[in-house]
């Protein structure tokens, strides 16, 4: 009898899983279920080029290889629950779908600030609809308040400046992109943003949003609501009392795993889905996870299970997870090789190409400039016990393969 694999989540991880299952010779049925209404598309442009020009699916859609032409896409309907022992998923419309194998690829959603205040004018950026809604408000040059100084916050700030908006960035850290880059490089990037006109108010959080709260009809700031459109945010009061006036607020304060549909199956869902090194969810047969939601140990480093929200990870994990699943389903041999991907990340801000290889955060105590200088093109090395564990480069494309090769050279111990 023909087997069926269900892929939960129809984005990059889900697409790559389908491709790898077909490449591995699986000829049974593949059903990919996604709560978004679109076929898989690429998210990084949503804070960069697409946000700067036009947010449409055609511009960011992934190409579909002929090999996945017969995948069934059930779009616009979330999976509500799963019974893993019975191997059944239940969709929000009541449909139940039995499967022989299940791929968890439900990714993340943006964390929202619990801060009270009006809802209109407050944005996040994860989906095409999010980016389109933000794009529609980024003209003609409103005042933009970005909350969060991570990569997505800084990219949105750069794009909003490009569109001529006055931009303020508020975040609790003292330096933008502190965790992934370290203090010196983060400070150097702050200088570049400031040179482009971005104002940073760091070491602060948002106390409350200003503007009339349409749910109560009461002005949240105590002033007459005359100047504000009903229910629209007009700024924020920060933890130190500073008032920032703004027409558009973007919350870029991290993300939460989409795993509620797996509740009730006895899994550790405290931070994504816990996987073994072969991407099997807690070692269970015929159940794998890929992409942002997969928490897996990487023997290239310390073997601690972590989620990695890098664009390279859906592709890498899908490759390995497909082999595990096909082995469990009896279509392939088990692969004993350790899975040790080299995490790869990039960011574009004002035409600066920032590239990260390896695990800089694990080498945060020993950061050295290896080449160039922090305010120009630069290579920064992150070391653990004297060994290079991560590299971040700005520019210098001709040097990429040299540093990447050096990071790959370290032996992988299991």
């Amino acid at each position, binding site marked *: 009898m023909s087997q069926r694999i269900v892929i939960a989540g129809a984005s990059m991880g889900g697409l*790559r899983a389908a491709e790898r299952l077909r490449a591995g010779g699986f000829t049974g049925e593949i059903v990919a279920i996604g709560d978004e209404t679109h076929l898989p598309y690429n998210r990084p442009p949503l804070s960069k080029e697409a946000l700067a020009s036009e947010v449409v699916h055609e511009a960011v859609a992934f190409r579909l290889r002929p090999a996945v032409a017969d995948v069934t896409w059930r779009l616009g309907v979330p999976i509500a629950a799963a019974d893993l022992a019975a191997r059944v998923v239940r969709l929000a419309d009541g449909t139940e779908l039995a499967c022989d194998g299940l791929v968890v690829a439900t990714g993340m959603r943006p964390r929202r600030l619990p801060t009270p205040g009006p809802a209109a004018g407050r944005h996040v950026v994860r989906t095409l609809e999010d980016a389109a809604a933000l794009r529609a408000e980024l003209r003609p040059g409103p005042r933009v308040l970005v909350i969060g100084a991570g990569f997505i916050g800084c990219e949105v700030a750069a794009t909003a400046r490009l569109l001529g908006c006055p931009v303020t960035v508020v975040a609790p850290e003292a330096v933008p992109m502190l965790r992934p880059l370290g203090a010196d490089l983060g400070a150097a990037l702050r200088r570049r943003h400031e040179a482009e006109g971005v104002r940073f108010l760091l070491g602060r959080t948002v106390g409350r949003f200003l503007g009339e709260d349409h749910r109560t009809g009461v002005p949240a700031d105590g002033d007459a609501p005359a100047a504000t459109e009903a229910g629209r945010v007009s700024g924020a009061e920060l933890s130190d009392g500073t008032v920032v006036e703004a027409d558009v607020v973007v919350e870029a304060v991290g993300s939460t795993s989409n795993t509620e549909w797996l509740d009730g199956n006895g899994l550790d869902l405290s931070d994504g889905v816990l996987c073994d090194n072969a991407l099997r969810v807690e070692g269970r047969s015929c159940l794998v996870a890929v992409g942002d939601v997969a928490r897996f140990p990487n023997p290239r480093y310390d073997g601690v299970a972590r989620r990695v929200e890098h664009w*390279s990870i859906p592709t890498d994990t899908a490759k390995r997870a497909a082999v595990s699943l096909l082995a469990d389903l009896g279509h392939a041999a088990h692969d004993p090789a350790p899975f040790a991907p080299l995490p790869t990340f990039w960011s574009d801000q004002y035409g600066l190409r920032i590239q990260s290889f390896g695990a800089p955060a694990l080498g945060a105590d020993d950061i050295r400039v290896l080449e160039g200088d922090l305010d120009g093109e630069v290579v920064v090395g992150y070391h653990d016990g004297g060994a290079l564990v991560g590299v971040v480069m700005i*520019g210098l*494309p001709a040097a990429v*393969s040299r540093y990447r090769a050096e990071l790959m050279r370290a032996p992988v111990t299991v």
Partner: protein
Amino acid sequence: MKIIVDMDVCKDHGQCVFSAPEVFQISDSGRLVYESEADESLRDAVEEAADVCPLQAITVEG
């Protein structure tokens, strides 16, 4: 198999180079150079290069 890279979109990340070094290279001046025709035996590598390009600038035809 024909390979087209939209050089207006390409930002010389060099990711494609790691998947298919026979076809894609970064020159000493830091720009992408590539072969516009590749042998069928390189199809998997070239398809992978197109997949991993951060800008999705690579098109494979035929």
